[in-house]
C-alpha cells in the first residue's frame, strides 16, 4: 500500500537534461500506465521510481517520506522486467522465493508463499524447472510470481508483455488486470502499446520527449486529449488531422468548406481540425462535408477502413462499422460528426470546444 508522489522530478545524464518538472501523484491502489513512444523517458521514470536510476532533482515521496536517496532494496517495490531477468541458475521456486531467501524468511513460510503464488499463476507443476526450460509466457509468469511473493507496497512493470506473441499478450494482460483486482496494490506499468494502456489503467500518463503530455482516465484521453500529440497517440487508427482556418460560423477547410465547430474557442485561433476515423461517416452526397475518392479499402470484418483522398484537403481515413460495400476507386462522400471533432491551436494545444 503506497501513495507515490513525484514533485518536480528532473533527470539529466551529465549536462544533457532528458526530463524536467515531472509532477505526478499516484494514489494508493491505483493502476497507473506510463505510455509514450520509444525514447520518451517512460522507462527512465519507472527506473527512477524503482531506485535503479538516480534522480537528478526534485522530490520523490512514498507515503509522504522522501525516498530520493533510499536504495532500491529499502523501497519495498517489486519490479517485472521486460526481459524478465530471471536468475538462470535457480529453479522456478527459488526464483520466486529469492526475496524471501534474502530476507532470511522461515523455510516453511517461503515454501507456502511460493506454492501459493505458483498455484495462482498456474506454475505449480513447473516449480523445479530452470528458467531455460520454460516458454516465454511461463517465464513471464515466474517474473510476476517473484513480484507477488514479495507482497510489496507497489508493483512496477517495465513493458512486461512486449516479448510475448499477440495471443499470449492478451491473456497475460487479463491476468495482470485480475492480479490488480485481487491485490488492490499500487501498480505502475510502462508500455508503448496504447491498447494495454487503455485496457489496464485507472489513469494513463502520456509522455513525450521527457514531458508529461496529459494525465487522465482512458476515456478522458480519448474524448478530451489535451493536445495534438495525445490525440494522435491514443486511438487506433490514428486521428485525422486537417489544416483549417478560423472563419465566420466555424472553421474553413482548405477547400473552402466551412464546418460549424469551435464556437467556444475563445480568443485563440484554430489551426487544425482533428477527427477520429470512427467519427466520420460515409453519407449521401448532399449531406457530405467532403467529397473524394476511395484510394484503398481495408475490410477487417468488424470494421471497414476507407482511405479516401479529398481534393484540396488531403488524405482522410474513415472507419465504418461492420462490412461496408465499397471498393477502391469508388466515390466517397464524408460527413464529420461535428460534436466529436477537436480543434488545435498553432502550438498543438487543444482548444476548449
Amino acid at each position, binding site marked *: 500500500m503506497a501513495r507515490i508522489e513525484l514533485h518536480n522530478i528532473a533527470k539529466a545524464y551529465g549536462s544533457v537534461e532528458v526530463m524536467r518538472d515531472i509532477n505526478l501523484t499516484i494514489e494508493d491502489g491505483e493502476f497507473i500506465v506510463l505510455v509514450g513512444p520509444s525514447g520518451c523517458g517512460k522507462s527512465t521514470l519507472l527506473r527512477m521510481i524503482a531506485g535503479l536510476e538516480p534522480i537528478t532533482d526534485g522530490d520523490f515521496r512514498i507515503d509522504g517520506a522522501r525516498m530520493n536517496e533510499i536504495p*532500491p*532494496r529499502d523501497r519495498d517495490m517489486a519490479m517485472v522486467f521486460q*526481459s524478465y531477468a530471471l536468475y538462470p541458475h535457480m529453479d522456478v521456486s527459488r526464483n520466486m522465493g529469492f526475496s524471501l531467501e534474502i530476507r532470511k524468511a522461515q523455510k516453511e513460510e517461503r515454501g507456502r508463499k511460493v506454492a501459493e503464488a505458483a498455484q495462482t499463476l498456474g506454475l505449480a507443476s513447473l516449480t523445479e524447472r*530452470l528458467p531455460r526450460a520454460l516458454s516465454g509466457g511461463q517465464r513471464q509468469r515466474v517474473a510476476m510470481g517473484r513480484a507477488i511473493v514479495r507482497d510489496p507496497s507497489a508493483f512496477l512493470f517495465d513493458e512486461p508483455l512486449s516479448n510475448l506473441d499477440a495471443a499470449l499478450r492478451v491473456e497475460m494482460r487479463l491476468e495482470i488486470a485480475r492480479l490488480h483486482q485481487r491485490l488492490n496494490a499500487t501498480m505502475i506499468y510502462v508500455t508503448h502499446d496504447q491498447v494495454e494502456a487503455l485496457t489496464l489503467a485507472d489513469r494513463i500518463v502520456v509522455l513525450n520527449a521527457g514531458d508529461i503530455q496529459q494525465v487522465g482516465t482512458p476515456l478522458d484521453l480519448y474524448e478530451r486529449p489535451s493536445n495534438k500529440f495525445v490525440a494522435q497517440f491514443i486511438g487506433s487508427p490514428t486521428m485525422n488531422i486537417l489544416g483549417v482556418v478560423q472563419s465566420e460560423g466555424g472553421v474553413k477547410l482548405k477547400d473552402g468548406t466551412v464546418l460549424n465547430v469551435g464556437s467556444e474557442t475563445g480568443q485563440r485561433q484554430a489551426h487544425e481540425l482533428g477527427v477520429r476515423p470512427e467519427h466520420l461517416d460515409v453519407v449521401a452526397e448532399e449531406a457530405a462535408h467532403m467529397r473524394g475518392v476511395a484510394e484503398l479499402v481495408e475490410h477487417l470484418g468488424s470494421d471497414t477502413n476507407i482511405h479516401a483522398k479529398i481534393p484540396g484537403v488531403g488524405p482522410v481515413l474513415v472507419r465504418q462499422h461492420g462490412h461496408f460495400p465499397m471498393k477502391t476507386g469508388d466515390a466517397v462522400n464524408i460527413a464529420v460528426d461535428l460534436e466529436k471533432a477537436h480543434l488545435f491551436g498553432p502550438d498543438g494545444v487543444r482548444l476548449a470546444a
Partner: protein
Amino acid sequence: MTAIADSASGEPRARGSFYFRYMVEPYLYLSPAIILIALVMLVPLAIGISYAFQSVNLLRPFQSGWVGLENFQTLWNDRKFWLALTNTFWWTLGSITFQFFLGLGLALLLNTQFYGKRLVQALVFLPWAVPTFLSALTWAWLFNPTIGPLPHWLAALGILSEPFNILGDPNLAMWGPITANVWFGIPFFAITLLAALQSIPGELYEAAEIDGASSWQMFTKITLPFLAPMIAITVMLRTIWIANFADLIFVMTGGGPANSTQILSTYIFTTAFRKLDFGYASAIAVALLGLLLIYAVILLVLRRKLVKI
C-alpha cells in the same frame, strides 16, 4: 517422379556397400586430421611413456633395453622424488591460491567504472607478455639484497630479521618462485574472470537489488554461480600448467638450495638433461601425468555436480 525412381534404383548398390559407407568412409575424410594429431601428439606421448619402461641412459648406451617396472621401483624408493612431489604440491597450491584470489579481486575491480580503465586493463596484461626467463631473472635480482629492494623492505616490515636473500634459505626459498609465479599468473585469472563477469546480464543485479539483496549477497548468489564454470576450468588448467611449469624455478633457484625448491618438473628436467637418464625421467613424468589426470577427473566431477549453468 523420375527422381524418386532413380534414387530407388540406386538403393541396392548403396546397401551393398553399407559397411564401407558407415564404418569406413567417415574416417577416410577425417584421416588427414587424425594422422596429423597422431603424429604430433600421440606418437611422442607413446614413445615418452614407453621410455619409462626402458633403460635409456646416454651415459650407459650399452645397457639400454626393456626393464619392466624397474624405473618405478627405483622411484618408489627415491627420497628425492617424494621431496619433489611435496614441493610440487606446495608450489602449485601456493601459486594457484594467490593467483586466483588476487586475479578475482583484480577482475572485480576492473569490472567497475573508473577513469583510465582501458590503460589499467592493458597494463594488467603486461606480466603475461614478459618472457618467463626475463621475469625469473628480474625477480631473482629483486630478492638479492645487494641489488634488489625486496629483502630490505621485508626487513623493515619486520618480516625478515635482517635483509638476506630468501632464495638461499631452504625454509623460505620456495616463496621466491611462488611470488614470481603469482605476479606472472594474476593476469590470466584477471582477464578470463573479467570476461566471465562481463557476460553476466546487468539486469540480474537490478532484479536482485530490488529483491533486497546486499552487495555481498549479490556476489555470492549471482556473481559466484555465474563465474563457477569459468573458475572450475581455469583453476584446472592453471593447476596443470603450474605443476608442469619449471622455467621460473629453474632460473631462480635451479631447484636448490638443498633441493628445497625441487619440483617434479625441474627434477624431470635435471634427470633427463643433466644426468641424461631419459628412462628414469620418463618414469617421473608418467607418475606426474597420472597424478594430474586424477586431479582433473576429480575437478570435472565436482564441476558437474556444482555448476548449474
